[in-house]
């Protein structure tokens, strides 16, 4: 495969950084960089995915544009990560989804919505969507249990498979790794779930401009843990439905509703906050071309939460049928798109952090 312009630029930038090293206190990228004197494509892919895009190094850089050296690590690494996402998408054919990701996400979401609405219309008697269903298993009157569970399980399993294959390909392409011990995995996971590298040593990152702030880290936490809470709500609900024979909907003070509500609010707050930061931030250290992909995933997560909460509020009215169909359409789109949206940064970054933990442990010895 011929070397891309982005890869060449990443190499040029890392060679400048490696001769300077002023930024080594900011995050894991620079100490990892200092392990090398020359950078293979795999090294650069690894470093790019280790980068959390905090932009501290851009504002501290005496070689940032308009200096003739024009060093812009966050932008260069954002573009290189996008190449990683394309290169490791499975099946290969769908790598194109990353080319105009914003449009792809929007279209898939619209298609999923239409599909669920049509299915509910066809599979169940006319009038289903406008009837005020209440009581146990009301949801399944709108969408039959088999359809809902079958589609959900199939999509999720396919997405997990695609993410897994992408992760394995990424791990191999970014240099394999030193032997990884259990402690390295735990440390890598710890760094991932705490977003340690967005801490900048305790004072935060350059979310919008030269000023340091913890806003992005906090919004990301709220969003990510909101997502997990929603996922937990779904799992608990599934358990109650299949193991205990208590189908949805659940009362307000039940575990699925509490987790789902808190998670939904987290997703709304986190995604809104991240979106606001993205749209008001200094555009120079960002890759303009990737804005669509960034915004699309945030918008999808926001929609998933918003439609879920609206459904909760109006679930005992005549609007429930339509709201349920819309919510499930969005969720379907989200699951389908997991491996073909910016969501893939989560497994790649985590793997890069695990490798970094292994390499650092190696360095200490």
């Amino acid at each position, binding site marked *: 495969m011929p070397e891309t312009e982005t890869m060449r630029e990443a190499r040029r930038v890392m*060679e*400048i950084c*490696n*001769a*300077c*090293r*002023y*930024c*080594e*206190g*900011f995050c894991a990228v620079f*100490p990892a960089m*200092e392990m090398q*004197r020359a950078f293979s494509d795999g090294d650069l892919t690894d470093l790019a995915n280790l980068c959390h895009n905090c932009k*501290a*190094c851009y*504002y*501290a*850089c*005496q*070689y940032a*544009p*308009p*200096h*003739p*050296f024009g060093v812009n690590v966050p932008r260069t690494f954002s573009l290189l990560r996008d190449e990683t996402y394309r290169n490791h998408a499975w099946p290969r054919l769908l790598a194109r989804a990353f080319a105009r990701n914003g449009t792809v996400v929007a279209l898939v979401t619209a298609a999923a919505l239409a599909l669920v609405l049509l299915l509910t219309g066809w599979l169940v008697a006319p009038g289903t969507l406008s009837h005020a269903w209440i009581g146990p298993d009301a949801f399944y009157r709108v969408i039959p249990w088999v359809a809902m569970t079958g589609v959900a399980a199939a999509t999720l399993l396919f997405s997990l498979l695609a993410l897994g294959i992408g992760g394995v390909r990424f791990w191999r392409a970014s240099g394999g790794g030193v032997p990884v011990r259990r402690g390295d995995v735990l440390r890598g996971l710890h760094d991932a779930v705490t977003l340690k590298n967005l801490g*900048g*040593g305790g*004072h935060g990152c350059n979310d919008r401009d*030269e*000023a*340091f702030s913890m806003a992005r880290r906090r919004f990301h936490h709220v969003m990510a843990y909101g997502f997990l809470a929603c996922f937990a709500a779904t799992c608990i609900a599934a358990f109650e439905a299949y193991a205990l024979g208590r189908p949805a909907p659940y009362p307000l003070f039940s575990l699925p509703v509490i987790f789902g509500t808190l998670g939904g609010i987290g997703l709304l707050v986190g995604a809104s906050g991240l979106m606001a930061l993205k749209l008001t931030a200094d555009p120079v250290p960002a890759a303009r071309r990737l804005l669509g992909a960034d915004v699309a995933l945030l918008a999808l997560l926001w929609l998933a939460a918003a439609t879920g909460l609206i459904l909760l509020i109006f679930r005992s009215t005549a609007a429930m049928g339509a709201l349920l169909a819309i919510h499930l359409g969005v969720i379907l789109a989200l699951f389908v798109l997991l491996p073909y949206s910016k969501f893939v940064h989560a497994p790649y970054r985590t793997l890069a952090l695990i490798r970094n933990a292994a390499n650092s442990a190696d360095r200490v010895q």
Partner: protein
Amino acid sequence: MVWDVLVVGGGNAALCAAITAREAGASVVLLEHAPRAFRGGNSRHTRNLRAMHDAPAGVLTDVYGEAEYWDDLLRVTGGATDEHLARMTIRASADAPAWMSAHGVNFQPSLTGTLNLGRTNAFFLGGGKALVNAYFAAAERLGVTILYDTEVTDLELDNGAVRAVNTVSRGFPLTLQARSVVAASGGFQANIGWLREYWGEAADNFIIRGTPFAQGTVLRDLLGHGVQQVGDPAQCHAVAIDARAPKFDGGIVTRLDCVPFSIVVDRAAWRFYDEGEDVWPKRYAIWGRLVAQRQGQIAYAILDAKAAKLFMPSVFPAIRAGSIAELAGKLGLDPAALETTVSRYNASVRPGNFDSAALDDCRTEGLDPPKTHWARTIDTPPFIGYPLRPGITFTYLGVKVTERAQVLMRNGRPVANLWASGEIMAGNILGKGYLAGFGMAIGTVFGRIAGAEAARHAGN
């Protein structure tokens, strides 16, 4: 309007003065010659500050007391210092890190490869530009008015006081009035024409490591008005850097640490100095002058594969070749002459135990000039070459100040409303040589004094 305090310059010393004056209640305007993207003078390229401490403090380990600090300064300056001002600066440097933290500067443990500075110097997280960003943000928050793209052309110094400050601001003439003025506009190292007065045409081949805005306009203006000068005008701090560096602002990445492990030849492919005289940190700063004295102000470090990984590379790729003759061709040297130099050197190398980290016993015998340490034969391809040129860091010429940072006239009387801080007055204390992080210490200490005094004067 008449400003209480006008600060000329936009680097560390200027910012410390502006922030201090504003915190004392003065109205402050700061004039930065550079556009916003290149603000901060040479402070952008710095990375630490040398701070006295009698106990471990923050990132500073162990103890670094006044006596040791003073000894270090005395050693590098060879006595070209003012003991009173120097000791005062050293003592005041103990307070600097806390003040810096309070104004947004973040510190980190010493950078890798600079372990020897972890005890004496506090490193700025992200380096000097991060510090400059923090100070500008603090100044803006406090309400200091900042004018970028504003070059001070001259001060109207009349009857012992500054009456007005003339500038070109974003292309237009602008005259400002202030009760107090702080000159923190740096040295003149970026003014090639001025360097040429002492170095002749050689100056055209100098590379300026830092900001192109250090033109020395205010310094020259003040000296022209009868202000007393300090420091040798002909002297500058010069190191040997990669000759491929940009003319200005190449900064840290163009430095080359390969000299002790190489032989260095001039344009005629002859050696001219003992490359292994002492450990590199102690000889780092003499090679700029050595190269400046060679024909064409250029030299070439020649190494072989054995030495390729013993030093931090510069940002530019090593020039490699399979033979000495081929390398000479790539460097533009006479192949036969370089082969002769290398073979004579190789023949004079005595066996020894090579140790890159210590003054080892690998040396030449019967060679002039000798190489007294780390001398190993150059015989293993690929052969490597780096071109070297003098890289000018700063100049020593400055204005004479009192311990309250007040500028003195040649008649010994202070200018009533003019203070100086930073490189423009560092020659009072560092008349010669170099001590890592000391320039930032002087700038911080005198910037704060100048700002406080200027504000006090304006308030009276």
